[in-house]
């Protein structure tokens, strides 16, 4: 326990640790090197000890077990995490901006009266506080913020740190909450999986992604034609799915799919961090957007500042001409 330590909330996805956990551990190691503290990984839920070998980047792995942590619900998770943070008094608690992170990070900050920063991309010590670089306004603005008090609750943007091979002491401690966790008024009932039968966009080599810049449902058809010409499928950003123009199985990003196609052609997609999270590792990204400052151009290999509605027919013709 030390005010120089950095705590990382580890999350699982399926039977494995979520990729973002390794990014947070890399961030934690970098920060702990300058504060001179240790990196603590916290796992909430039964069987957490099984993940300990994969958490070797941490110095201490705190696995908290309680039947109420078997499936996610906010109150038991926030209470269990609060107990660990209060006991360990770290300089910072790093929590990924995931579905769970968006609940527990602010709930923890509110209960501990601790500072919270969202959209965090980089952290460094600043006296006894921290300086945080954070992205907001859909990735169009960056803020340097000073966080004065400890523990700082930092909601980290996935993709901000690269996992390193660096290891820590990797000592496992298994704990139970001091008192059994209260169930709270909000309880997990069941998982709802997407309906089978639609195209699996994670298996496509070519994806034509449409964003709000596509403007109307009818225009999705133009993207479909391009996808057909290239032997791929159409996927979308969240607002297109929210409009009901494409099913949720076609959404790319934080709450959609993570894709790594050979080609990702982004048409009228701004490239908000939540979208980039699902597509930034595509082999070839070509972005078309009328706004030269759209963040999608930061991850694209090629870009064009042009109206998608003009480009789509022209591209259809150019591809047809190449096919002969």
């Amino acid at each position, binding site marked *: 326990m030390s005010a120089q330590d950095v705590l990382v909330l580890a999350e699982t996805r399926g039977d494995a640790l979520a990729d973002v956990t390794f990014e947070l551990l890399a961030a934690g190691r970098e920060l702990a090197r300058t504060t001179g503290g240790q990196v603590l990984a916290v796992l909430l839920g039964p069987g957490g000890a099984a993940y300990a070998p994969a958490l070797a980047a941490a110095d201490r792995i705190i696995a908290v077990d309680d039947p109420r942590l078997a499936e996610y619900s906010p109150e038991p998770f926030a209470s269990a995490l609060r107990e660990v943070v209060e006991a360990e008094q770290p300089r910072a608690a790093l929590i990924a901006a995931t579905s769970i992170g968006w*609940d527990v990070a602010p*709930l923890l900050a509110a209960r501990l009266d601790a500072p919270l920063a969202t959209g965090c991309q980089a952290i460094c010590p600043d006296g006894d506080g921290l300086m945080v670089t954070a992205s907001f306004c859909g990735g169009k603005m*960056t803020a340097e913020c000073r966080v004065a008090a400890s523990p700082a609750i930092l909601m980290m943007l996935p993709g901000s740190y690269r996992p390193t091979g660096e290891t820590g002491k990797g000592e496992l401690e298994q704990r139970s909450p001091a008192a059994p966790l209260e169930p709270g008024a909000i309880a997990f009932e069941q*998982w709802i999986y997407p309906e089978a039968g639609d195209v699996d966009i994670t298996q496509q080599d070519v994806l034509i992604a449409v964003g709000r810049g596509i403007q109307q449902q009818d225009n999705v058809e133009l993207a479909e034609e391009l996808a057909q010409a290239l032997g791929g499928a159409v996927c979308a950003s969240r607002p297109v799915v929210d409009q009901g123009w494409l099913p949720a199985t076609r959404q790319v990003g934080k709450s959609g799919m993570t894709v790594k196609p050979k080609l990702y052609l982004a048409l009228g997609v701004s490239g908000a961090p939540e979208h980039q999270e699902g597509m930034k590792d595509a082999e070839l990204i070509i972005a078309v957007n009328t706004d030269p400052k759209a963040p999608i151009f930061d991850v694209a290999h090629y870009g064009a500042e042009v109206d998608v509605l003009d480009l789509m027919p022209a591209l259809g013709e150019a591809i047809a001409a190449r096919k002969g």
Partner: protein
Amino acid sequence: MNIVVVVRQVPDLIEPLEIVPSGDALDLDAASFILNESDDHALEQALLLKESGGGSVTVVAIDFGDVDNTLYTAAAKGADRIVKIACDGDTPPAARDSAAVYAEAIKPLRAELVLVGVQAHDELDGGLSPFLAAALELPYVGVIRGVKAGDAPGTVAACKEFPGAVMARMNVKLPAVLGILGADQPPRYVPVSRIRGAMKTTQFEESAATLAAGELLLSVSRLYPPAPATRAEMLSGSEEEIAGRIAEILAEKGLVK
């Protein structure tokens, strides 16, 4: 069900964002404002719940960023009451500070369900919704897409989004605060004539709640736009030239078969 919805105005990202000369804040005088997207979904979800199960929808907003238009639109869509909180300064308080004032305005409304957008893109200490839940001492769950009446009276079933288009159905005992990401249906369109009608008939209620800055836990020292496109090679020319170049790149990579 007695539902309260919080709506906030945020800078429109279609317009260029400007920074004040001191470099530590957005120049809000230069910004144009729109309704925060997830708050729009929160309003839609509230209206859908009212339509299916009865009750009332009260919209609460801080008087900032041309909010009146948004509030008249909410009334035209079917909100029953509109409560406005005065904002004396040029800038609204940060998410965390504003939670206290929203809580003060909402407490007397005896809400069974409070719906707030899970994120506003101008927040740096974000998650107004969980901070509001803490201030109201109510349970909270966020990242919700879709809410229905629950199986038991006094409950709702809320779907929480997880990666891979997977959702968790959560049973929520009321009263509670939910952070909405998406409604069961896209926000409804309302014709301008109905908004004009609402302007004539809607009376805003003024809340007695007052804004107060809390302890400064997070201070912005500098704002800047991220470095301009560092990676993309920009293609220029007419649409036909750009299309031709893209087709050429795809052919080089063996993607045109």
